[in-house]
């Protein structure tokens, strides 16, 4: 099973409500997967700054005096702690240096994702507990995706939770299971990608990141995925300004989409969409198999 939700706002007046709308959608999908839950939110970027979302099993010890320790290395960061996660705001040109310093200073800290606008929060447990723990309801943003997991391919851990992020401002959630992920992982490792888990979805995320790094746009990368990924999948993907959906040709994993003048929404089931404003008059449809759908704030503008 697994439950996926996604919301891409066209009407900027809805942006303050993004976290609340997405939280309600995700909690509705709880019975599709009780193992772990996660959410990625694309907020307003700050000029010249980037964000790194980190996670620790021992946040008290790992996050204490972290700003000072980084400052000693001449890395000035702003630290916002939310439960087991924290967001580091860093100079945009210091992301790699900060990540390297974190690996040395705090080996127990895991990077959830980084970029100009993405923040990722994910933990084991039910969606209602995960969104409360990270106060997702109060978050504003332009688009976001969420996932509640019924684990099949790898362990129930924080790192095995979705969304997976393998490139700046990129993330992916998945309902299904891939059958050629081990081979594909080996090929991607040869190309220089690194992996945190044995999870199949992380391979799909890294595959798309590798394609985007080669200059493909999200639509092209998703089209390539249809040729190269074997297995069952409904993917919802986020980039800094874009939002994409693709289903495998068999399309047995459910998907419903809705579009109005104000938003594009995705749900594993229609139930996830019923509380959205104006859903009664939305165009609601089931995405076609092996067909790429994507929306982009920059291309639309």
């Amino acid at each position, binding site marked *: 099973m697994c439950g996926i939700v996604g919301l891409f706002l066209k009407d900027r007046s809805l942006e303050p409500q993004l976290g609340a709308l997405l939280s309600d959608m995700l909690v509705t999908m709880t019975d599709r997967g009780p193992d772990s839950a996660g959410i990625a939110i694309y907020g307003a970027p700050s000029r010249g700054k980037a964000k790194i979302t980190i996670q620790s099993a021992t946040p008290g010890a790992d996050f204490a005096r972290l700003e000072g320790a980084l400052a000693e290395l001449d890395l000035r960061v702003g630290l916002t702690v939310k439960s087991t996660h924290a967001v580091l705001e860093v100079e945009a040109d210091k992301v790699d240096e900060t990540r390297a310093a974190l690996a040395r200073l705090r080996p127990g800290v895991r990077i959830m994702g980084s970029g100009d606008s993405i923040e990722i929060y994910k933990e084991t447990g039910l969606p209602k507990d995960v969104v409360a723990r990270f106060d997702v309801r109060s978050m504003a943003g332009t688009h976001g995706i969420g996932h509640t997991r019924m684990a099949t391919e790898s362990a129930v851990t924080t790192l095995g939770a979705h969304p997976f992020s393998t490139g700046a401002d990129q993330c992916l959630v998945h309902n299904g299971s891939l059958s050629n992920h081990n081979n594909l992982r080996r090929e991607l490792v040869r190309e220089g990608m690194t992996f945190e888990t044995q999870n199949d979805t992380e391979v799909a995320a890294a595959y798309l990141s590798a394609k985007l790094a080669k200059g493909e746009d999200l639509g092209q990368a998703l089209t390539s995925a249809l040729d190269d990924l074997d297995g069952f999948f409904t993917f919802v993907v986020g980039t800094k300004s874009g939002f994409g959906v693709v289903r495998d040709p068999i399309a047995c994993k*459910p998907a419903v989409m809705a579009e109005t003048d104000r938003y594009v929404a995705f749900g594993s*089931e*229609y139930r996830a969409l*019923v509380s959205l404003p104006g859903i009664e008059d939305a165009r*609601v*449809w*089931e995405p076609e198999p092996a067909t790429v759908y994507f929306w982009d704030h920059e291309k639309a503008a």
Partner: protein
Amino acid sequence: MPVIDLAVTPLRDLNSALHAIPPGPNDIAFEVVNPRGSHSVAVGIDAPVAVDVKGSVGYYCAGMNDGGSVTVHGSAGPGVAENMMSGKVVIEGDASQYAGATGRGGLLVIKGNAASRCGISMKGIDIVVHGNIGHMSAFMGQSGHLVVLGDAGDALGDSLYEAKLFVRGTVKSLGSDCIEKEMRPEHLSKLAELLERAGVKGVRPEEFKRYGSARKLYNFNIDNADAY
């Protein structure tokens, strides 16, 4: 007429009330409001009762229906009217995958489009889709009729037994052992009857093509091993 508001009444109360109707003629009609995509709405009806659902439903709506008349004024999720025995189910909007799967009787009318696997393993049900159907529809269909006013997706009627398929638009591809067949007078009259019962107006049976089994696969023959 009982009105059940699923925003306040548990789904099981609705379905229990439907199951408590005594057999025999009755004029009870139920209205269900605020379904909000709920699963298993009006499953297991076994009496001639009318149910009007005002909104869209989730998985398995009207499953196992035996004699009831269920109308969904919205769209339906996967498995609508799964294993219907008799009666009528009408979806005013679209239906998701495997609509009417394994149905043994009755009439399923989908006024919008149906997704993949519509009528999979049908065993006597009649299905009329006003729009298009997705891939692998009528897979292993054994008996009954699937009528499609629009187009059909890939692999229509794969491994078909004796279900009869009528498509007015294009067929993207036929599945293994499914072929176009001659439309004989008895097929035209059956099609006219089904269109009439499904409330289709202004469409003539002559506009359809008939598809059925080539009967090469359903008894195992070693010479056909490559076709499986």
